[in-house]
């Protein structure tokens, strides 16, 4: 078919008629922050510890589900409005305020512009002063553990694990570590100056650095609490 001038006009008209404004703008207000304990970031496994944000009275009743990053960071793009933030039950290596009768505390957030909001929680334990060094094809770590929760909610340490990974994502996830060693909780006699080491396996392709991280498995809690990720060169 020969393209005639009026065909072009028709095509332009059809195209132009699609140029209506959308009904809604995309959400553009940033809500971000970290999981913290007394101002310090709580480190967790990426995409494993979820949180729920609800916007009551608007749209469907379901939650906006988000996940914390490795360093406990979260960020959401939202509309201005009032929201409620809460942690689902049994998630995260920390305590969230319970209100009794299976109700959980919620945080009211009034969003009227970009906002940074840190989420203060009480972790069961904190890894203190982790130091990583390499020697003889090994990564050595020394660290202290602080037991934060000492009341009736206290839980024991099941194990402490030293992970090394090739990338900046390091965790218990099989994809995110190349080697690890485990120290059973029962073998920990002192909470100070704990030392662990892990052999660096053959890395393909070779690289002269690894990323190291410590994690505590708390008995009866699925998510581990981690130390910040440190790049160790050798």
């Amino acid at each position, binding site marked *: 078919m020969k393209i005639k001038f009026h065909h072009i006009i028709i095509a332009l008209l059809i195209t132009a008629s699609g140029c209506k404004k959308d009904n809604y703008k995309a959400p553009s207000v940033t809500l971000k922050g970290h999981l913290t304990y007394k101002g310090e970031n709580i480190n967790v496994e990426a995409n494993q510890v979820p949180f729920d944000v609800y916007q009551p009275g608007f749209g*469907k*009743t*379901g*939650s906006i589900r988000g996940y914390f990053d490795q360093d406990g960071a979260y960020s959401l793009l939202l509309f201005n409005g009032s929201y409620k933030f809460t942690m*689902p039950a*049994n*998630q995260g290596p920390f305590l969230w305020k319970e209100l009794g009768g299976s109700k959980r505390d919620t945080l009211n957030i009034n969003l009227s512009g970009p906002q940074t909001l840190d989420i203060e929680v009480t972790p069961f334990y904190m890894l203190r002063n982790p130091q990583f060094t390499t020697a003889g094809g090994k990564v050595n770590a020394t660290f202290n553990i602080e037991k934060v929760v000492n009341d009736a909610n206290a839980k024991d340490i099941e194990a402490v694990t030293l992970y090394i990974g090739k990338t900046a994502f390091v965790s218990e*996830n*099989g*994809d995110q570590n190349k080697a690890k060693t485990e120290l059973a909780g029962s073998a920990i006699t002192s909470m100070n100056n704990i030392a662990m080491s892990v052999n660096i396996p053959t890395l393909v392709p070779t690289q002269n650095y690894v990323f190291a991280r410590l994690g505590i498995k708390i008995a009866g809690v699925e998510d581990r609490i981690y130390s910040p990720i440190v790049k160790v060169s050798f």
Partner: protein
Amino acid sequence: MKKITITTMFAALLITGACKKDSEFLDVPPKSIIASDVAFTDPALVLSILGDLYNRQVDFSGLDNGWASFADFSESFPSENGSYFFVQRTGWGFGEWGLYDYTYVRDLNLFIERVTASTALTESEKNGFIAEGRFLRANFYFEMVKRMGGVPLITKSLDYDFSGNVSSLQIPRAKESDIYDFVISEAEAIKDLATNTSDKSRASKGAILAMEARAALYAGSIAKYGVTTPVVTLPGGEVGIPASMATGYYNKALTAAKAIIASGTYSLYKQLPDLSDNFANIFLDKGSSESIFVEDFKANAGKTHAFTTNDQPYSISDEGGDAGRLDPSLNLVEAFEKLDNTYAPLATKDELGNPIYYSNQLDIFAGRDARLAGTVLLPNGLFKGKRTDVMAGYQLGNGNIISSSDASQPQDVPGLGRVQVVGQDGPVSGLELRTQTGFYIRKYLDPTVGSGRRGRGSDVNFIRYRYAEVLLNAAEAAAELGDYATASTYINQVRSRAGLTTPLVLTAANYFDRIVHERRVELAFEGHILFDMKRWRIAHIVWDGNPMTASELVTNIGSAKKRNTQPFGLWPYKYYNPGNANSGKWIFKEVKPAPVTGSNRFQMGNYYSQISDDIISRNPKIVKQPNQ
């Protein structure tokens, strides 16, 4: 004038012709739909409605769900380029395995109500149909509770009154124990109503009792083992069953199983002298005395499946390259015991670490549980009168291995010239549609001529409930109740059929590992493994997300909590070293196929499948699953 008269009459005719009432004009009975008051006057029509309801039952692994429904959990390796995600992912989504189909529940409820209301059917016809409808409904609730925990329990059809208020239709989740109680009480109520005795694809007293036994056993173990995972509970009881109810459920399971055993209607299938062939034939013989409730298929009549097409050995395929997708893993193969009831890895090396040479590939599997060769088509195994050609390469005297990317790519072997160095049937890492573990599936594999063709398909039954499982259910229930002697007699019936004739003595110390193991090998690829691991609350231990090593694979066999996160293969190599006594014999190596990069990680949030936000949004009374 005449003209005017004619015109007027014509116009009048036209106008009156349109003088029908609007309602009459639109109210034409549809010719393609049979109204429900008509349909429920004739038993044949009711049966056709019931047939549709039977077809809509859901199985976890089903022959018509596709081969991939059998492929997960490291019990097998998926040899198809599009399906490597099974072994490359590091866990399951929370929504995986979900089932929430209230359209079907409503249709079942309507069916039961309409049969009940029907005046044209005889009393015995009505009872029979109602029993079948209630069986299907109870069985479907059982399928839902296995996956979702407590779900809304709706036992009558709900209708919207157009008042603008839907709260009467928003029904909260029942307790998990309530759903199990419903399944059990329905079974008790209808077991003597079922009129069907011969047709195994329809509800019978045996099927109803088998469902009851399994459901009660599941509930009992959730109650008993739920205490080990306190986070997998909800405060309202929608998930989790109190430990105090365990004994009651185990008693019910044992009673129901005993009723089937005592009826004498069913027996273990023992027809063929070769115990492995006999085991494979349970699933092929439609007249099997062992099957209790099946999903039936019929070739050349529209209901067939492609299991054989998808999974037949490559070189024996009826359909060119369509073959070999489901490869049982070495993990599963190692689990089959020796005939003296002990576990041992397949002997690939002696104490010094030197390879052991076998003149026939099948020799390494000799002296094992007959179910091994009945479930798995071993290297050099027989199918349709031909033997599979499984060879990973030549191993030379100097330790060199000569292999290639395909059987059609010959290589130079010193002294032999240019020869085929890998088997027609694999294994080559990453070469799809051939085995990559060294094994093919034998269970359900149809030896009928033409069954592997896409057009014809296979009509092998899928057995949903069978007698061996009833015996294992009875054994487990009895053992959990502390009666190890009775439990041993039940489990030994199943074992002796498999050639394990030395009686096993169950004790408080070994019964758990033994029952977990027995169910794994007897009921492999029958859709049990996920639900078994879930109800014993060991799924997060067995699939803990850690990669496996070959040395880990061959140790600690038979332990219920043994890690099983990555499927392995056993690759046969032909030893070629002229002058050496072992030249021409076979050696075996444990291999992790190259596509296996992930490792199964079962999280606490996987114990109960997610109820989607969409459902919760429509019914805010639904509470979320724990740990999600």
